[in-house]
């Protein structure tokens, strides 16, 4: 059992050890859907939702199932995440079709987002309890959203600026990400 305070878990997951910029999790949506602020924000919110559900089910699995079958950890986590995303997709489609249309392809893509599986595994490795896991998930989700929205706003701004031909595309995005990551390093000593 881990005895970190809830606030330090939250703050560490969101800012100091930001999932995208410090731990390289969830880079695919970070590169893929960070072209517009609106979609980036929606993607971030969908991620928070799935992260919280994952934290809950990972806690459930850890407490009731994996105690006796530790070698099934990776397999059971990935199955639970895949079916969770599928269920969320069906529920959202039935109850809120407008939201479903807005999220579009991003909802199923969350399954292969390493931030989700990463959260479940980190939570287990650090031995977070129920409430700690929940706070960790919300913090991590907000951190992902923050990184996505920051990146999207920068990309919207540089869209019309005159960059050399070789820098158009992913190369430039990675260098901007590096600069953002440098900025986030400023928080490193805080906790």
């Amino acid at each position, binding site marked *: 059992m881990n005895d970190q305070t809830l606030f330090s878990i939250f703050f560490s997951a969101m800012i100091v050890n930001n999932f995208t*910029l*410090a*731990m*390289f*999790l*969830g*880079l*695919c949506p970070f*590169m893929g859907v960070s072209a517009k602020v609106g979609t980036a924000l929606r993607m971030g919110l969908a991620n928070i939702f799935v992260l919280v559900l994952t934290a809950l089910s990972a806690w459930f699995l850890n407490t009731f199932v994996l105690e006796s079958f530790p*070698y*099934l*950890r*990776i*397999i059971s986590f*990935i*199955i639970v995440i*895949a079916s969770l995303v599928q269920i969320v997709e069906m529920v959202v489609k039935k109850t809120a079709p407008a939201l479903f249309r807005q999220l579009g392809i991003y909802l199923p893509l969350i399954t*292969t*987002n*390493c931030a*989700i*599986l*990463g959260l479940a*595994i*980190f939570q287990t*490795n650090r031995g977070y309890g129920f409430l700690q896991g929940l706070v960790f998930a919300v913090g991590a989700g907000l951190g992902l959203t923050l990184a996505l929205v920051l990146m999207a706003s920068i990309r919207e701004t540089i869209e019309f600026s005159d960059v050399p*031909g*070789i*820098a*158009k*595309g*992913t*190369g*430039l*995005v*990675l*260098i901007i*990400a*590096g*600069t953002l*990551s*440098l900025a986030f*390093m400023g928080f490193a000593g805080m906790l």
Partner: protein
Amino acid sequence: MKKTTPSQDFIRGIWNENPVLIQMLGLCPALAVTNSVKNALAMSAATFFVICCSSVLVSTCKRFIPNEVRISAYILVIATFVTLADMMLQAYAPAQHKELGAFIALIVVNCMILGRQEAFSAKNNVFRSLLDAMGTGIGFTIALVMMGGFREILGVGAFLEYPLFGPNFEPWVVMVLPAGGFLTLGFILLGMGYFEQRKKAGQADKAEQTA
């Protein structure tokens, strides 16, 4: 899909469609564990093992896997081999396992591996799937070792923990920190973009001269 020869299957993953540098797949491990060459090698070896075994198994079983649940079936196969790799590393190289931490488990969600199963192994025979997987695995290894090399040489002043420069070398600490990962890959891509542009310009020149 175009017909390709077995050697093309092998080369494609290494060069023309390098998973990390061209297709931008599997970026999370490529950036996260390349702070030293040793970590990069261990990660590549684990990924190589997983992609080869999964490709062989998926192409062997492709007739028995119903089309509707194929993605889940592939993920299950991959997760099984990742568990194996995780346990083997823990048993034979516990220090290295600790260093890589959760990133071994995260091989499951490396889109490169799932991508090869869906795009190649599900449609081709065992031998060619193995060649394709080996090519992709080697391409991944080259990209990771290259990044690990840059970062370790600049950030620590050593290669495979063997010091290269005298004591007066001031290491660029930022290269082994997260920001360095983004910057290294960014500059590698810029370099590749530069050569691509020169190649195009050269071809255009030649075309003009012959015309």
